């Protein structure tokens, strides 16, 4: 067997093997690896390449080494999932960099992080003022995660005691002019519904690049032809405005009408509508 054929066969075999091993090792993104994982991946890559090129002459030796580098991490991962001690030993422990708003200089030194780097990592988290940070931690992957002081955190509807509409994920029902049946069934809709909605919008299916249904059941369409202006669904806002108008009308009638009974009827119903508007506001406007 000429040497090049041998290298070809070795390379193919090791390519497949390395592919399978790396898949078996998990889904961790290379940029989020702990140093230990990085060493494992590098060792597998180097061993596979050296064996393929016959730098390691004996194919079996290469395989043995590969097996050790792949199986040991798997075993260690298994142990790490069960024991916190093993996990910390393997992947290290996160370091607290800022605690109760104070920078922990000792921990910074231990992590070999300069003040400059800490500030850079904070800026990467959109924190330009170190005084805004209550707590920051250096993860084992090298990321810095930040907990802002409670008065510097963005306001949430919960804090404002606002009720907001629960929103589920939108479903894509049209892609590149093709109907995605999975999205439709997920929303409990069918092609007949879609056909009606498209007709309402006055658009042919072939002209739609992306169509999505939001959790309110409204269809958003993006067309291939960007010159065409499509009215975006505003039904909820219109419904709210319509009810508001009707409520104002009733108040008006109550003021104009003669006779106690009719006046009370109008005023009572105006009150009902006002309450209804207040109740529906989170669903229709937010």
């Amino acid at each position, binding site marked *: 067997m000429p040497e090049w054929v041998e290298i070809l066969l070795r390379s193919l075999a090791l390519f497949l093997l390395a592919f399978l091993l790396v898949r078996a090792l998990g889904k961790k993104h290379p940029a989020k690896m702990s140093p230990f994982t990085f060493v494992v991946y590098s060792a597998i890559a180097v061993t596979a390449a050296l064996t393929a090129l016959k730098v390691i002459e004996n194919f079996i030796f290469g395989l043995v080494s590969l097996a050790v580098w792949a199986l040991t991490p798997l075993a260690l991962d298994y142990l790490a999932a069960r024991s916190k001690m093993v996990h910390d030993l393997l992947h290290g422990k996160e370091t607290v960099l800022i605690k109760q708003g104070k920078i922990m200089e000792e921990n910074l030194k231990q992590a070999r992080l300069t003040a400059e780097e800490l500030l850079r990592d904070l800026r990467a988290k959109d924190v330009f003022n170190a005084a805004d940070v209550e707590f920051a931690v250096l993860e084992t992957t090298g990321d810095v995660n930040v907990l802002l002081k409670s008065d510097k955190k963005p306001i949430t509807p919960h804090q404002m005691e606002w009720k907001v*509409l*629960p929103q*589920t994920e939108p479903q894509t029902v049209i892609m590149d002019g093709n109907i995605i049946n999975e999205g439709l069934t997920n*929303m*409990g809709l069918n092609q007949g519904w879609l056909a009606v909605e498209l007709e309402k919008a006055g658009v042919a299916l072939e002209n739609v690049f992306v169509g999505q249904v939001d*959790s*309110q*059941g409204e269809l958003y369409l993006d067309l291939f032809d960007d010159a065409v202006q499509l009215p975006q669904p505003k*039904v*909820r806002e219109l*419904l709210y405005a*319509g*009810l508001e*108008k*009707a409520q104002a*009308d*009733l108040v008006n*009638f109550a003021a*104009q*009408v003669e006779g106690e009974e*009719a006046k009370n*009827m*109008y005023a*009572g*119903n105006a009150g*009902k*509508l006002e309450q*209804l508007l207040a*109740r*529906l506001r989170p*669903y229709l406007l937010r």
Partner: protein
Amino acid sequence: MTVGSQLKQTLASLRGARGTMRAYANQARDEEARNAYGEGVEELNAVIGDLEERLKALETAEPQYRGL
């Protein structure tokens, strides 16, 4: 515009709102939202009923406005 035709307009817009809301009560995915819309439909039913009665009374009192 007479009171009767103004009332008819308001009634029409309320009926439209009720229709939209009924559609929402069926298509919203969230249980809470569905219930809110459903209750809204009920409430609108009551309001619309009251106004329809009033309209009828107006039309009997002043037959010349009937059907306008």
